[in-house]
């Protein structure tokens, strides 16, 4: 229903110029360290999200070149469409669907739902709350452009409010009338975001917990919950309560930009007590739950990209995972590995047609 048919890269990261035709639903990508496996996945990520999974646009221009181009043909419900992302020499980015440039890139988000699992994603489990908020926002933004729009507006008003707090404090001006206006403006998208996250968590959290237990295959006491000050306070109350503190800090100390997804293991923070394998299992559970939700809401399966996921997993877990993402799942899947033989063996076992892309020059 949704898959990439080919990909052309020009001056993108380590690729001077390359075209890949993508013929199967299951695609293995192999090659030594540094050949460009992750870069290839990131190019696909560009076409889904208009940006890199990892870095800012200019770092993706091939060294010594100016500008890059990523182009792909997508099959969406048997309709073929061309999508392209161009970074011009001037640094200006263009994003085109069927040769029509988007005026707002945010309009593209959600058209090509996509889930990436990369080694650094473990930050989702052990990193700061921003990582988990970004994860949740990425899901909700793919589901609703209205959510993304509210998020963009919220962020802009938040910056204005923080500047306003700073200017009040620095000039010792006791006129709060502009701050009052910004508070009211902030509450509108803020309350919207909170409500949407709250509703989302009701379905998402039990699903992620269930998937974790499936992967672990033994009872483990984990609990996941949505942590927001807005659970107990309304937006006006929260801003009112924090105002004095905000003025001292010169920034907004409470609101949906401080929400977190709390992950516990035996009622202690997951990152403190869980083993590396358990962390990784939880990461997969969260990402597979994302997959599941996107699929149910969109009524078609997102593209899944698994970058180097075999590291640190035992054979049994690898088998389980592949079965789940390749057999129980009907969407396009990209899997990278440095070891061509190991990858091929695993794909053969699935007894499904697959394609291998070997990036080594031999």
């Amino acid at each position, binding site marked *: 229903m949704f898959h990439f048919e080919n990909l052309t890269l020009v001056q993108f990261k380590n690729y001077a110029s390359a075209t890949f035709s993508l013929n199967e639903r299951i695609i293995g990508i192999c090659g030594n360290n540094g050949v460009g496996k992750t870069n290839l996945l990131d190019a696909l990520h560009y076409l889904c999200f208009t940006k890199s999974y990892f870095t800012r646009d200019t770092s993706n221009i091939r060294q010594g070149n100016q500008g890059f181009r990523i182009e792909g043909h997508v099959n969406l419900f048997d309709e073929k469409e061309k999508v392209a992302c161009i970074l011009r020499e001037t640094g200006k980015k263009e994003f085109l669907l069927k040769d029509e440039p988007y005026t707002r890139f945010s309009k593209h988000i959600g058209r090509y739902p996509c889930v990436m699992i990369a080694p650094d994603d473990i930050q989702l489990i052990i990193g700061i709350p921003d990582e988990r908020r970004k994860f949740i926002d990425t899901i909700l933004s793919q589901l609703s452009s209205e959510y993304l729009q509210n998020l963009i*507006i919220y962020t802009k008003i938040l910056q*204005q409010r923080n*500047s*306003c707090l700073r200017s009040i404090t620095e000039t010792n001006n006791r006129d709060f*009338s*502009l701050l009052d*206006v*910004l508070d009211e403006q902030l509450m*509108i998208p803020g309350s919207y975001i909170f409500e949407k996250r709250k509703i989302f968590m009701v379905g998402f959290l039990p699903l992620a917990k269930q998937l974790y237990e499936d992967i672990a295959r033994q009872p483990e006491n984990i609990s996941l919950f949505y942590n927001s000050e807005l659970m107990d306070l309304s937006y006006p109350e929260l801003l009112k309560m924090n105002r004095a503190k905000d003025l001292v800090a010169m920034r907004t100390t409470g609101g949906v930009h401080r929400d977190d997804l709390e992950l516990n293991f035996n009622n202690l923070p997951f990152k403190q007590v869980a083993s590396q394998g358990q962390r990784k299992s939880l990461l997969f559970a969260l990402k597979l739950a994302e997959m599941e939700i996107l699929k149910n809401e969109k009524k078609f399966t997102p593209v899944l990209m698994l970058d180097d996921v075999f590291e640190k997993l035992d054979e049994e877990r690898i088998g389980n995972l592949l079965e789940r993402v390749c057999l129980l799942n009907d969407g396009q899947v990209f899997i990278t590995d440095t070891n061509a033989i190991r990858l091929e063996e695993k794909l053969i076992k699935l007894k499904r047609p697959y394609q291998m892309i070997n990036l080594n020059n031999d």
Partner: protein
Amino acid sequence: MQFSSALLENAVNEFARLPGIGKKTALRLVLHLLKQETADVQHFGEIISKMRSEIKFCHRCANVADGDICSICANSMRKQEVICVVENIRDVIAIESTQQFNGTYHVLGGVISPLDGIGPDQLKIESLINRVQKDQVQEIIFALSPTIQGDTTIFYIQKKIQPHTIRITTISRGIAFGGELEYADEMTLARSLQNRLPVESYVANSH
């Protein structure tokens, strides 16, 4: 670019400082002037410098004026009790071109944006509130950018004048205006002036 005359080079450099004018266009303009009669070019230069040194800003609405009060404020045929609040002088010109508006203006000089260091004090907001208090203003029409900063400015001013019972409206915001008002075609602009919305309903629908 190599010039054999410093006089020529200076003139080209000055033209090239204007918005939208590159070196090549600047050279073309200067060479054109060079072909004209000395007196004509003299006249051209005088008009420009006179414009800058003698132009005034209306004490009432901050629009450009040839005297203390602009021709719009001074015109007794225009409804002095209706004020259209705009960001800049270009917006006044665009709305005037529609010939559909018979009230007066108030030029704020921008919109509130703390991030850019623009607070209410940097704009002509106080003078607007004074006008509302002193004159018998019946309606204020906001024609500001459809942005968060435009919204902030509307809400802020609205709060300040709330004690006075006057009609507060905004022109429908589907069209590009504010900084982009000059690009909106006259028909669309005229229509949106006609179909203005009360501010409350606009707030509810915008996000």
